[in-house]
């Protein structure tokens, strides 16, 4: 045991702690990731196990256009927050509106895909294991896109009615973390469902 006293830290030493919004969102993302992992595992586990058709190869088309839309919406949201941080509210509103549009295009694309699958290819969640895992995994992701989109639309309404200024940049930062997460999940879903699964 040392007998030399260690001087306690000086009182004027800055006391910096992580930001609670970011930490909270990071925790939520970890929890959500675990949910997605289970659905992805179920998808991979049941790949090719269906007792009857239709199979993914017969009915799935690569959703290239909507994927590009969703992934680029991450960039537009990033630029929106960057504009807000420089207190350019006009630029923020424009980029945010573009983000919402791109997200909506993705959802419409998913809707059209599902309509085609259900009414033309006669694949429902009850048809076989492919239907079960496909609709639940893609549907779970689409639900997250809808939730993210609703929050972005709320932010857009606040921006259009003039309630947003650069003081809110941090909140938008936290919200954009969620949106980036939803986009990152799509990369996994796309790879598993449309690349490996076909």
């Amino acid at each position: 045991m040392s007998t030399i006293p260690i001087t306690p830290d000086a009182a004027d030493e800055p006391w910096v702690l992580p930001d609670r919004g970011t930490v909270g969102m990071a925790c939520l993302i970890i929890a959500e990731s675990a949910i997605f992992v289970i659905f992805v595992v179920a998808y991979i586990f049941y790949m090719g196990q269906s007792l009857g058709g239709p199979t993914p190869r017969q009915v799935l088309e690569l959703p290239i256009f909507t994927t590009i839309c969703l992934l680029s919406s991450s960039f537009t949201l990033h630029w929106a927050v960057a504009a807000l941080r420089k207190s350019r509210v006009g630029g923020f509103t424009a980029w945010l509106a573009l983000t919402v549009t791109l997200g909506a295009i993705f959802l419409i694309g998913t809707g059209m895909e599902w309509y085609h699958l259900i009414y033309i290819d006669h694949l429902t969640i009850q048809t076989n294991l492919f239907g079960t895992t496909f609709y639940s995994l893609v549907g779970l992701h689409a639900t997250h896109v809808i939730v993210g989109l609703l929050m972005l639309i709320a932010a857009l309404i606040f921006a259009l009615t003039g309630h947003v200024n650069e003081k809110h940049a941090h909140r938008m930062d936290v919200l954009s973390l969620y949106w980036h997460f939803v986009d990152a999940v799509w990369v996994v879903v796309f790879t598993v469902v449309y690349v490996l699964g076909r």
Partner: protein
Amino acid sequence: MADSVTSLSAVETIDVTPAEKPRQLFLEVVYDWITTVDHKKIGLMYIAYSLIFLVVGGIEAIIMRIQLAVPHNTFVSPEVFNRMFTLHGTTMVFFVGMPILFGFGNYLVPLMIGARDMAFPRLNAFSFWISALGGILLYYSFVGGVGLYGAGSAPDVGWFAYAPLTAKVFSPGHSTDYWTISILLSGIGSIGTALNIVATVLCMRCPGMKLNRMPLLSWLYLVTSSMVFIAISPLTAAQIMLLLDRYVGSHFFDTQAGGSAVLWMHFFWIFGHPEVYILVLPAFAFANEIIPVFSRKAVFGYPAMVAASVGIGFISMSVWAHHMFAVGMGAGANVFFVFSTMIISVPTGIKIFNWLATIWGGKIRFASPMLFSVGFLFQFLIAGLTGIMLSVAPFDWQLTGSYFVVAHFHYVLVGAILFMIFAAFYYWYPKVTGRMMSERLGKWHFWLMVIGFHMTFDFMHIPGLLGMPRRIYTYEPGRGWEIWNLLVSVGALIQAIATLIFIYNLVHSYYKGEKAGNDPWDAWTLEWSTASPPPAYNFATTPVVHSRRPLWDIKHPEDPDWNYE
């Protein structure tokens, strides 16, 4: 240096201006509690809620033990027996274990790290109420669902609800739906509270409260809450799949359509085993605070304790399939899970070693919290030993699904976790209410609990070894099980009496207990520096800490702790 010490004088953290307490109407009090976002009130609501469910789950256990006390008993029908063990397990894990630990965490973590409140107070209230709704929904199933013919309506599929028992064909009516949705809701609440605790511990610490100076309780709550994200979420996902199976006709666990019943087992136990550690780590946390204070020594091996807790957190994610040795996973998987299960006993052993080393040479005070802690140490050791026995796959093949397994996990859940929860009640009750709990009743409670516990769960191993399977509603005489079952049932009644004494003590001491003062145990962590009960704002001025035992530094300015860290 003298300045830095006086900056945390006990006088400054307590507002000495006399508080005015206006008399409130009953409805105002109710409104106050329902709308509160104060971490202390939410913590107390969590604890009260889980105590109610502890009594309910206990009554279910007693019903089962009366039924099994003698062979060919007809105290309850087989259907009712099925409902009892399902509700007993589900209630005790989701509506007693989780909320009581979150309740203590809610109450203690902000006080211990010198914070004003949790990081997200409104999320905190939301998490509590959604968990509460889950528990109410589970018991509403008695009224609201229609199950199998003659089975009444409560869930009867067992607490791990293996497929295909939960399929629509085998569980008609809505009993299983109530089970699924109540667990889904309580899972959402758990994730919300866990998120809150992690954010609080990381972002709300008072100046000087570095991570390596945090009380071990905060550390263990950080680890256990982080585990909640990775453990509870798979259960939530699996419950969503089960709901899809039951309501829109998907085939996740439908073996007729190629689905897999084993997949449910994996998903359930990926939650189920880490859950044991989620429940036991807060019990360790209580031991980490109580044992040093009652041995009058700083905790032995603080860094090793933190490292062991984090280690348990990681390893516990890779042991789940030791619940499934009998499924036939193949030699490779069996070997992996045998070894991972054995490895997790290493960090646990480190903890027991450190607690013993803390007690060693200490000036021990055997007050009620310490009595329960010592009981915990012995019983947790034995629970760990039967755990190592069961981790050996061939041994497990013999005894899986027998009363030996039931005895093993109740040794952990009752002998370790419940004992430490009782210790925590005796230890922090003076802080919460301002009054001491009765030591005399505490000693009665402890000794009856020890006798009842060992009568029940020591003897329960034996019918398990003799081949008695779990979940049977009765048995034939002449198999050598009768005497053991009778003893187990008598022990359960003794535990029930002990628990009633405890609840009487809780209520009686609230009105008649002797005044506690701010620091009745001469303890060292920040919660004891403020008033008992703490005011809504916790600390009148934000405390500043310089070591792991800030109150020791105040009480012993000539020999502060930071000289030794």
